[in-house]
Structure formats: structure tokens, C-alpha cells
């Protein structure tokens, strides 16, 4: 595999070029000019086109500079912890409509403390329960804000 394909900038450039093409193709379908002045397609067409050009410049720059030292190479091992945390948050949000905020947030807290930071179960459970109850007391009772409620709880 070429060195540049391991670089984040290369893939980011390609993704942004695709986004730019999508913006331009959508804007193409809207009025560019109307009798009263610029239409809904006017602004997106311009920034979408600039986005395509800039992202291609980023890709070209990465390929032409193909020097291993010049750019940061993505290390998947570094990403693992962050992505695990993100996945835990995504699951927390996905189950919130079934189990409500307190249980989903308690589970998220327990997961971060017990699984990701490898703290004792007692500590993780104490923080999970204390955190969920504390949030409920502060926001729901104290500030009278509506917390997400689930269909089951």
C-alpha cells in the first residue's frame, strides 16, 4: 500500500471532495437566479465548487508530498479507546428512548469507569448510581428541566 493512502489527509480530502460534489449536484437542481435575485442554489453552488477544488488540492498535496515524515499517519491503536467511548455514547443515546436518561447514563458511567478505566466494580457502581441520581436531583428537581424519559422507565 502506498504511504499516502495511510494518511488521514488523503482520505479526508476524498471524503470532502465527495461532499463538495454532492453539494454542487444538489445546488444544480435549485434556482441559481430568480426574478428577485439569487435563488437557493446560488450560495451552495459557489461554496460547494470551492470545496471540491480545495479538497482535491489537499489530496494532491498529500500524494505529491509523499514523504513519511511530512504528515501524521493514522494509528488505529490510538483510535480504539476514543472509538469505544464514542460507541458507548451512541448505545447510550440509542437505548435512551426505551430505558430513559437515568438508566442509560448510569450504564454509560459504569462502562467508562469499570471497563475503560478498569476501576473496581464497587467504585464504578457507586459513581454510576450516584451520578444518575445526582443528575436527576439537580436538573429535574432543582432546575425543573425535562430529562429524556423511556417507554419502559
Amino acid at each position, binding site marked *: 500500500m502506498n504511504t499516502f493512502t495511510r494518511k488521514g*489527509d488523503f482520505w479526508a480530502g476524498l471524503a470532502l471532495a465527495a461532499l463538495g460534489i454532492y453539494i454542487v449536484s444538489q445546488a444544480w437542481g435549485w434556482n441559481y437566479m430568480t426574478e428577485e435575485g439569487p435563488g437557493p442554489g446560488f450560495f451552495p453552488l459557489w461554496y460547494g465548487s470551492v470545496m471540491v477544488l480545495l479538497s482535491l488540492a489537499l489530496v494532491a498535496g498529500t500524494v505529491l508530498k509523499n514523504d513519511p515524515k511530512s504528515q501524521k499517519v493514522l494509528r488505529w491503536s490510538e483510535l480504539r479507546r476514543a472509538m469505544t467511548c464514542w460507541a458507548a*455514547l451512541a448505545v447510550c443515546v440509542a437505548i435512551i428512548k426505551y430505558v430513559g436518561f437515568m438508566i442509560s447514563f448510569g450504564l454509560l458511567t459504569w462502562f467508562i469507569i469499570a471497563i475503560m478505566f478498569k476501576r473496581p466494580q464497587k467504585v464504578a457502581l457507586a459513581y454510576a448510581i450516584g451520578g444518575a441520581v445526582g*443528575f436527576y436531583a439537580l436538573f429535574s428537581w432543582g432546575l425543573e428541566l425535562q430529562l429524556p424519559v423511556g417507554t419502559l422507565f
Partner: protein
Amino acid sequence: MDIFNGLMQGFSVALTPMNLGMCFLGCFLGTVVGVLPGLGPPATIAMLLPLTFKMDPTGAMIMLAGIYYGAKYGGSTTSILLNVPGETSSVVTCLDGYQMARNGRAGAALGISAIASFVAGTIGTVLLMLVAPPLAKLTLAFSAPEYFALMVLGLTMVVLLAGDSLTKALLSMMVGLWIASMGTDLFTATSRFTFGQTELLGGIEFVIVAIGIFAVGEVMSNMEPEKPLDMLPVPKGLKNLLPTWQDMKDCKYAFLNGSLIGFFIGILPGAGATISSFLSYGIEKSYSKHPEKFGTGVIEGVAAPEGANNADTAGAMVPLLTLGIPGSGTTAILLAALVLWGFKPGPLFIEESPALFWGLVASMYIGNVVLLILNLPLVALFAQLLKMPGYVMYPLILGVSIIGVYTSDSSIFQLSLLVLFGLVGYVMRKLDFPTAPLVLGLVLGDSMEKALRQALMMSQGHLSILFRPIPAVLLCIAAFLLIVPLFKKFNSARVQMIDAEA
């Protein structure tokens, strides 16, 4: 209303028990987030913004502004005791502040940092009070073409100073403009980029993007294994925190330098507190009788940058309140807050909302006194926060983020957008894409498009309207700023400055 009467009205607003409490709360929270590395004012203000929707806007703005300038005070504590900046703008304080602490002068370093912050913060507020009203009057004649040009210039400066790759900064801004375009076009009722989702017809709320990118993205970035902290002790007793009379004499020019550089750099969009603190440190060193000692624990090396990064916040309020142009991620969130509460930051803001403007100015005077009190005798208490483990802090941040987003719209769909933008924020950090241009593009995108379309409607589609004297000059400056990085000498200076910040 003249300045004196305005200020009197401001104090009558800021000194009500509720607003005093909000000022204290903002300063306290600001100091806490300033002390904690990895949690900055943009994330905190974004998370707390939805919780302020039911509050009185003046009190809420006083609190959010308190977090903004309070964080600058707290950031120095971490720099001095740990050699890790609590805030990016406290990077320079590490150079001499940490050396002073290692030489047994941690108390004097913490003390002079709080005093310099107080002096410069107060001078900055005086300058804000003097500069903002006449500037607002000057820009009263602005209409759509001038506003469009002004926003282009503001975004260009942010892009220029946001990251070492101009291409990435511009791309980040374009993504912000794209997100701002989502929803129903108010001129023609056309749905744009809604992917068939009815929830997107009203567009994506700024708060969700800001919390996702700043708070969730920040938590994900900090998830790497923790390293043990090697914190130097804080001397006990107020007496040991006060600098000597000789220290104060040595710092008299540093106070002035920090105040003026900080304020005037703060006015420029994109320049920010980090650049002003580097500049004031450089100037202090150049004019010092002993420049060779800088970096070994010189007290002026702490006073100048700490002063500059506090005066900067008052400077940043000038374009925000008088032109409606934010210069950083944090001020972009403050602008969004004002708009959400129904205010119109711009030339008429001071005239239309005098209680808010003058109340905010008066609260900044009060806030600086509160912060001096918090940061001198209580600094040891705040330093204890550095011992708080990440596994306690991160779930709390995620919990407040979820509640903040849910409170703004009571919708689970918005929570899924929060998760998405958290990932976007993390990927941007990992790939060195600056986040400030995205947030500014998002905040200004809608107004910029409206201004451009209104301008072209005025001229029946002729671009010549953008070549009236004021917009022409502003657009030429913007074009010049985008072209100059092509010249190697300028670009290497620009990159050096940004690298130092990183």
C-alpha cells in the same frame, strides 16, 4: 446615552442579587474549567447554553461571559504548578511561571498572574466601554453589501490564523457554511440538504454542533491513558501568595503591555488570546534589561502574557457586540446565545439593548474583582481539582451534553446528531482540521448568505454593488490576506506562530 450614564445603568443591573450571583457562578465555573486541562470555555459555555433558555438573558449572559474570562484566570494555575497549560492561551505562562515555581516562587507566580489578570482585565473593560459605542455609531451606515464584506473579512482572518494548513482551515469553514445552509430557505421556502428528514427542515441547531464538536469531541480526545501528574505544591497562606513590592515595580510595564496588546489583538477576529499572550511576552522580552533571563523564571514573563490573555476577552467583545462578528469559537457561541435569546448583536445593539450591554460591561468590572478574590486566597483549593481523575469528569461532561441538547428541543433525533458531531469533532482534532472556522462558518453562514442575497437583490443581480468603497476595501483586504500565505516568508512566520500555539 453617554458612557457615564450607561455605566451607572449597567451597575444598577449587574448589582441586583440575582445578577451578582450569576456573575459569581460564571467566574467560579470559569476558574474551574480554566484549571482543568482538557475542558475549555467553548465546551462549557456550549453545554450550559441550553440550560439558560429559561433564565433572564442578562443574568445568563453575565454568567456565560464570566466563564469566558474566568477561564483565563484559572488557566495560569495549571501552567505554573504543572507545566501544562489549563487553557491554550496560558501556554506562554509555562515558560517562566513553571520555572518560578521550581525555584520556590510558586506563590509569587500565582499572585502576579492573578494581579496582572485583574489589572489587564479591568483596563480591557475600560477600553471596551470607550471603543464600542463610537464604533457602533460608525457602522450604523452599513447595509447588506458592507455586512457581507465584513463577514468575509472576519472569516478570512479566522481561517488565516486557525491552523497551519490554510486549505484545511478553509475546508473546515466550507463545512460550517454547508451545515448553516441545511433546512428551509427563508427566501423561497425550498428545502435544502434535509435528506428527506422532517426534523432537518428547521436546520441543525448551533448548540448541537457546538456541544458535539467541543464537548464530546474533547472527551474522546482525552480518552488516551492517563499519565500521573507531577504537581508542585501551592504555598500556604495569603502572605506567601503576594508578590513583593520589587516584583510589582518590575511588572509595571508588563501590566500596561499586556493590557494594550491583549485588547487590540482581541479586537481582530481570529487572532485570539494565545497570539496576544505570545506577542506581549515577545515585546516584554525585547524591551527588558535582562532578556537572556526570560525562560528561567522572570516575573515579567508571567505578568505580560497573563495580562494579555485577559484583556483579550474584553477586546473580543467589541466586534461581537458592535458588529455581530465573533472572532473565535467561544465568542461564536456567545453570539449564538444572544441571537437565541432574541437580541441582535450589531451597530444597534447598544441602543436597542442598553441594559444588557452596560450590565455586561459593569459585570466585567465586578467579575474581575471576584476573580482576584477567588484566585488569590482560594488558589490552593482550585489546584486540588487537578487531582480529579478523568473517569469521574468524562461521564459528567457527557451527561451534561446529553441534557443540554435534549433540553433545547426534547428530541432523541437531536441526540443522535450530537453523537454524530462528537465523532466529527474528534476526527477533526485527530487530522489537525481547526474547529473554529467550522463553528464560525456555521454561525455566520446564514447571515452571510442573507446579506449577499439582499445585496444582489438591491442591485438586481449586479456584482458591482460589492464594489462600493467600504465593501470593496474590506473584500480587497480579505483577498490580500488569502494571497499572502502564498509568499513563503509570510507563511513560515504564520506557521511558526501557530505551531508555537499548538
